[in-house]
């Protein structure tokens, strides 16, 4: 003997039985997922305006912001720009050429900019990498605490191009940096240092 469907619940008359192949609840769940995942970006993009044009720092360093990144400030001494997405900041600095290579650029940035600006900082091991056009660079992460006591995490790319060097420093309150890891990867890889 075979049974065509699941046994009926004692509190359920046959006419009231739940139809298993229902589209409505599935479509509601799918719509809510899309609303939560994509809706915010739509709202954020609409209120943030169009994608920023490429940011040029000094005449030698160029970086294309990903959608959602805003240019917040620029300065000329040293040539620098600050981009922001949510709680993540990305500082871009252009420096004179460094014949000793990217490790020296990184070391100088740590000693002269990073350590003095934070109450505490722990620097990760540097790994060699390369920017667009084959410019040699090193990448390292760091964690630290601001003078206001906010725990930060950051990642730095220090590059030594033929006529300039550059530092790209992305940082955020602890736990936030990972949300833009993909953006940073694309922007870092596409950055040019002439």
């Amino acid at each position, binding site marked *: *003997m*075979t*049974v065509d*469907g*699941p*046994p*009926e*619940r*004692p509190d359920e008359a046959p006419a009231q039985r739940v139809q*298993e192949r229902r*589209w409505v*609840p*599935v479509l509601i*769940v*799918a719509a809510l*997922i899309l609303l*939560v*995942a*994509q809706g*915010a*970006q739509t*709202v*954020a*993009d609409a*209120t*943030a305006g169009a994608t920023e044009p490429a940011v040029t720092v000094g005449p030698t360093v160029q970086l294309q912001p990903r959608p*959602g990144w805003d240019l917040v400030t620029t300065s000329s001494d040293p040539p620098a720009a600050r981009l*922001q*997405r*949510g*709680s993540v900041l990305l500082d871009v600095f252009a420096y004179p050429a460094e014949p000793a290579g990217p490790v020296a650029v990184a070391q100088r940035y740590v000693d002269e900019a990073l350590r003095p600006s934070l109450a*505490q900082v*722990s620097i*990760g*091991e540097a*790994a060699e*990498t390369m920017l667009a056009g084959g410019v040699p660079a090193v*990448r*390292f*992460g*760091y*964690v*630290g*605490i601001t003078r206001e*006591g906010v*725990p930060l*995490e950051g*990642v730095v790319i220090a590059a030594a191009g033929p006529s300039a060097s550059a530092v790209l420093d992305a940082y*955020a*309150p*602890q*736990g*936030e*940096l*990972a*949300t*833009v*890891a*993909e953006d940073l*990867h694309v922007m870092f890889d596409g950055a040019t240092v002439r």
Partner: protein
Amino acid sequence: MGVRHAHLHHRSVFQLHQPAFWVFAAFLVYGMVRMVGALVQLSAVSRSGWALSWLLLGLYAAPLFLLIYSLDLYEREPLSVALAAFLWGAFAATALALDAGGWDQVLAQVAGADFAATWAPALTAPVVEEFLKGAGIVLLYLIVRDEIDDVMDGFVYGALCGLGFAVVEDVVYFMAAFGGTPAGVLQGFYVRVLSSGLYGHVLYTGLVGMAVGLVVSRREPAPMRERLPMAAGIVALAVFGHVLWNSPLLSFAPNPPIEGVEWVLLPLGLAVKGLPLLLFVVVALRLARRRERRWLDGALAGEVDGEGLTAAEFDTLRSPARRRAAVSAMRRRAGAPAAKLLARLQREQIDLAMIASRVATPDDPALIQQRDYCRSLRDALAAMPGALAAAAHADAPGR
């Protein structure tokens, strides 16, 4: 028998006729494409650190997966559904959560960058992530309705989903926030897994799964008007736990860089935020187990000493430890095929309870059919050399 089983129980996730399956699969494929690409990109930071991340997280996740998977003592969940929950958390929920990063921007635009810098992790991520993980559990329920039928089922699938999410999130953290080098990965593993690996997504999504299980359960005697507020409370507790974890409140753990005695203080400081919720979940699981046993007793009350279940078998069935011991004794005395058959008989007797709890009358054809099937399995077992002696040994007083 095949038709009955296809509808009642132990179904795989591959229910191609279910619309929910295709929606689940579409989001999962999207998540895999998005996250695999992102994870491979991260390997460029340090291949050795990347490989070490996966190795360490595999060593953490594999035993935890088995532990969670074996929590439901009476009704082991289908492996394909359990894996689907894990993969949803690992790929679909993480990818969708990355897409939902725009909520941080909205918060920054509404409340200011300084406020967002401090509070965005606590105010956006918990709501978004728990919703996205929970939505996967709801889709799984819509695919295999009979497999999520109790708070324990919901916890198992929810916790596995949370575990998947935690594994991929940890890899991203190790590579992006801890530098990605082997030394950074080891530090990240200590901070995020060894010091706090039991407090995070596994607990939050386990609770969300419990809420889903409570609402959809067909064993739950409480009416829906009582279940819904209770489920909402459980979800709120999960989100609150996540909010507290991400917020600057009660942050007694030392901040990085961690040095000297701070390595010891770190897990203690993190426990202040995480341990209360862990203890709550442990108590909730114990209560859920007791409730499962009460359900089993009630469902099989009319079946004991009947065709499908002897009194001795019922005593064994009530205790997972005794069930394992009986199967083990059968294996020793009558061989692996007999042990396999006994385990199958036990599973079918759990199904007998499931059917008995759902049908209106004791002479329902499905119930009679299941009794007959259990009896036929018992007869087949008795015909195997050594099986009767093993059963008598297992049923002996004092065991």
